[in-house]
């Protein structure tokens, strides 16, 4: 009896949380495929297709708006940010965990604090810096600035990974005549791949999700990202292209949700090594 009660409680709880998470997304997906006459009829049940579903809104998004440009910009910035982030954060994390002594291992929380400095504190002076180097309204302004968020976070995450890895393998490589640098490249980096993969996802997703920098530094359509372009250019004054707006959100969200969902266990593990041991 008690066991049954527990099982019922478990599934009810799970369903409630799932419903809370998914309800706006369901509404988003339904709206995407609705005809205009159906969507704006207040007498209709909003959750049903009272008129046949249509792909028109998705087609409009790709042919009648600049959404493809936004997608391409976000993708390009994402790739560049991943490259910059990894080339700065991986060596730095390894150096802190192995090469510069005790204070390096203990620096996790300091690095994490840099990550916690919110963009709202820095966007005005950064706006000035970007203007001063004539980078406003280009994707390069964002490529330059996003690693300020990804580098601290990824260094912190990788520091945890490197610290939890046994040193013996690298030491064996050193005894075999490898240099430290070779031991890092051939032994430590391959072992840290789950952490590096998490960093890739995080660094790639950040340009997709940031709004404040994208809205501050870029005001021309050709350099807009999805995050800033969709709310500013698909809403024209009082005219909302709701179905296309929802399509725009769905196209980005679903792949990201699957990627994040599959990384769930890795993320939990990442938070187990740090900040617990870094504090």
């Amino acid at each position, binding site marked *: 009896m008690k066991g049954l009660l527990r099982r019922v409680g478990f599934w009810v709880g799970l369903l409630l949380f799932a419903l809370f*998470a998914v309800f706006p997304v369901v509404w988003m997906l339904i709206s995407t495929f609705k005809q205009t006459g159906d969507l704006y009829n207040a007498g209709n049940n909003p959750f049903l297709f009272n008129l046949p579903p249509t792909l028109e809104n998705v087609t409009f998004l790709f042919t009648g708006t600049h959404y493809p440009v936004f997608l391409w910009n976000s993708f390009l910035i994402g790739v560049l940010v991943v490259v910059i982030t990894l080339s700065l*954060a991986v*060596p730095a994390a390894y150096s802190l965990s*192995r090469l510069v002594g005790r204070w390096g291992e203990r620096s996790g929380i300091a690095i994490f604090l840099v990550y916690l400095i919110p963009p709202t504190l820095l966007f005005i002076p950064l706006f000035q810096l970007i203007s001063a180097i004539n980078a406003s309204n280009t994707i390069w302004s964002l490529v330059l600035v996003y690693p300020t968020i990804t580098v601290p976070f990824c260094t912190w995450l990788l520091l945890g990974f490197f610290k939890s890895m046994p040193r013996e393998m690298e*030491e064996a490589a050193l005894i075999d005549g490898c240099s430290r640098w070779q031991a890092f490249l051939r032994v430590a980096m391959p072992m840290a791949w789950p952490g590096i993969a998490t960093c890739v996802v995080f660094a790639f997703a950040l340009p997709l999700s940031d709004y404040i920098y994208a809205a501050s530094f870029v005001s021309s359509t050709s350099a807009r990202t999805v995050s800033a372009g969709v*709310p500013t250019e698909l809403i024209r004054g009082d005219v909302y292209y709701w179905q296309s707006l929802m399509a725009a959100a769905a196209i980005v969200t679903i792949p990201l949700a699957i990627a994040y*969902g599959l990384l769930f266990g890795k993320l939990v593990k*990442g*938070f*187990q090594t740090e900040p617990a041991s870094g504090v």
Partner: protein
Amino acid sequence: MATDSTAPPPAAGERHPGIGDRSGLLGGLMLAPAVIYIVALVGVPFMLAIALSTSSATVGAPGIHGFVGLQNFIDVMHQPAFPVALRNSVIATLATLVVTIIFATAESELFARDFRGKWFWQIIIILPWAMPVSLAAVNWLWLLDSQFSPVDWILRQLHLLGPGTLLGPANHLYYYGREWLGLASITMINVWRLLPLATIIVLAGRTSIPRDIYEQAQVDGAGFFRVLFRITVPALGPILVVVSMFTALMVFGDMTITAITTHGGPGYSTQILPYWAFVKGIDGGALSQGAAVALFMFPILLAAAVLALRMAFRQENQ
């Protein structure tokens, strides 16, 4: 916590005196690019923010030469929107924090078990976090639309909304058009988007609690809630502090949801500090005043972070 039981291994230099020097040099070389980059693009802008806030700079005249002391701070504080924005920032942050912590503890309790199709439920509950914040805000703008909100429709079907019902004579709630309902909606969106991350962090702490403690409690016949409040919550202490810090900073420092849903309106009744800084500094061109508003957040942020860390330390040392 989890890994503290193992003694920290000796530094590399101690075990390999032969390569100690080279390790130090290589370590410096590997660390330098990241440090230089962060100093140049976080450290320098932070100093610049302070310089800006004490200058008379605008977009038209962006130089920071005109030193005006604390005049910008005084000007900003005397505007009627300032106390409202400060109040809203604090209320929205605290409300989000309390609800998120309770929900995350409950949700992590569910996901600490193994069950069938877990990966599917993980994707479902992580959805809000995967959605870019601005698109989440657009999603919620449409979900709580003044005319076509399906939430209003459900309330009307349940006879909770509409003429002669509990929630009033109007057929719509106008979520973003009222001061307190607007704030509540923004809080709701923040809880929705931050819950997945909070759950993941709490879960990290939850799964490192030794299992035998639970087995022992089961042998002793302790009920679910007794186990939750006597074992799980106390053991989660430090990690809950970390989650609180995360959540508070994410809400307090973000303007996206307000910028897209209420625009701080009606009037400035749902304004928050970061969006006010944006409206002033970028939209309005008053760079120095915008920087002053943004800097108002810094002492609060710093105090919250230091307080959270000290609590985490203390719990750990016990």
